[in-house]
């Protein structure tokens, strides 16, 4: 018989369970299998009732985020052999309400993301016939890192502030706000400030830094938040010494 490894998977059926429990599954330990492959094996061969999200299997869609041995990861990028001999604890993303088994409710993130207006805001759109909004490679380079976010929300599960403060806007939403604030084509900095320069915006962040560590796309949300803090402080100081100049 080939080698196997145990998955300890969180189960929660909202119709019947009052709280989540753990169920163990024995799955083949293959060199090229990731946790997502093992969960698909469970669903196909052992227990069809297991619910989890996935789509691309290649770290692009951001839908298969889970806690694996207590760390938020994309389950499509978590190789079983790295956790051998196991067992491997697979839980839903921390700090989000559990809808069923490994599926969490992301509506809070979606609501907060929308608040920061993560799109190019123009005070006045120029007519199409006037052409594109041009941008140099240097201008692109200032925000490109923040634009790599795939909305996987691993950073939220790594952030204790988000767990403790329900109102905190959170790492990814702030990083995406910075992505647009730093875009030379954007004019939405001031309108985003109403959401960002608040106790539950950037000032809620205590710089734990775990969001940056777990980000699979090296977005560095912690950096985005600290850089925004500095930018807002500079603006505040400028407006203090030179009223009207801090805009």
């Amino acid at each position, binding site marked *: 018989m080939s080698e196997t490894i145990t998955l300890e998977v969180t189960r929660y059926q909202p119709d019947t369970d009052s709280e*989540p429990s753990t169920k163990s599954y024995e799955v083949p330990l293959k060199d090229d299998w990731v946790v997502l492959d093992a969960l698909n094996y469970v669903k196909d061969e052992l227990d069809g009732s297991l619910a989890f999200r996935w789509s691309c299997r290649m770290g692009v869609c951001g839908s298969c985020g889970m806690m694996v041995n207590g760390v938020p990861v994309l389950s499509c990028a978590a190789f079983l052999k790295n956790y051998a001999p196991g067992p491997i604890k697979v839980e839903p993303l921390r*700090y989000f309400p559990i809808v069923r088994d490994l599926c969490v409710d992301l509506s809070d993130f979606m609501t907060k993301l929308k608040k920061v207006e993560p799109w190019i805001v123009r005070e006045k759109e120029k007519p199409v016939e006037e052409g594109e909004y041009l941008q140099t490679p240097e201008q692109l*380079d200032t925000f490109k890192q923040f634009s790599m976010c795939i909305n996987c929300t691993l950073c939220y599960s790594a952030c204790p502030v988000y767990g403790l403060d329900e109102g905190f806007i959170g790492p990814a939403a702030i990083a995406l706000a910075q992505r647009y604030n730093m875009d030379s084509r954007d004019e939405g900095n001031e309108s985003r400030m109403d959401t960002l320069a608040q106790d539950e915006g950037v000032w809620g962040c*205590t710089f734990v830094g775990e969001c940056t560590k777990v980000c699979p796309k090296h977005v560095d949300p912690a*950096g985005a938040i*600290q850089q925004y803090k500095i930018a807002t402080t500079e603006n505040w100081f400028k407006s203090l010494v030179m009223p009207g100049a801090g805009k």
Partner: protein
Amino acid sequence: MRTIDSTPGGPKPYVTPVPRLWWTASAGYVLFVLREMTCVAVGYFALLTLCQMSALISGPEAYAALQAWLKTPLATLLNVLCLAAVVFHTVTWFNVTPRAVVVRMGGKRLPDSAIIAPNYVGWAVITCLVAWVVLGA
């Protein structure tokens, strides 16, 4: 307020409570809490400096009394522990500086080491200056 998407009358999503000892869940959290707690040591040294200044103003006797207390084993132990905490505080903050400070030269972002190094250079220069003033006096 956290938005929860649930159908009225339907099954409710389960909200996992955050345990009081959440900060023991990972080494990163523990280091973060330690870093935050070391600010007490920073506060202690600031307070000690104020006490020294106050004793200096009060006269030679008050200053001598404070010096005598500083030489006790308890004060020495406290100072050594607080110094270790302040060094940890300083190093951890210096090392995260590149996350907050972005400097671009020639269109390229300077590497992390170029942001961290000046902090250590400044620290060393100020330490040497203080040592020169204190030991040279």
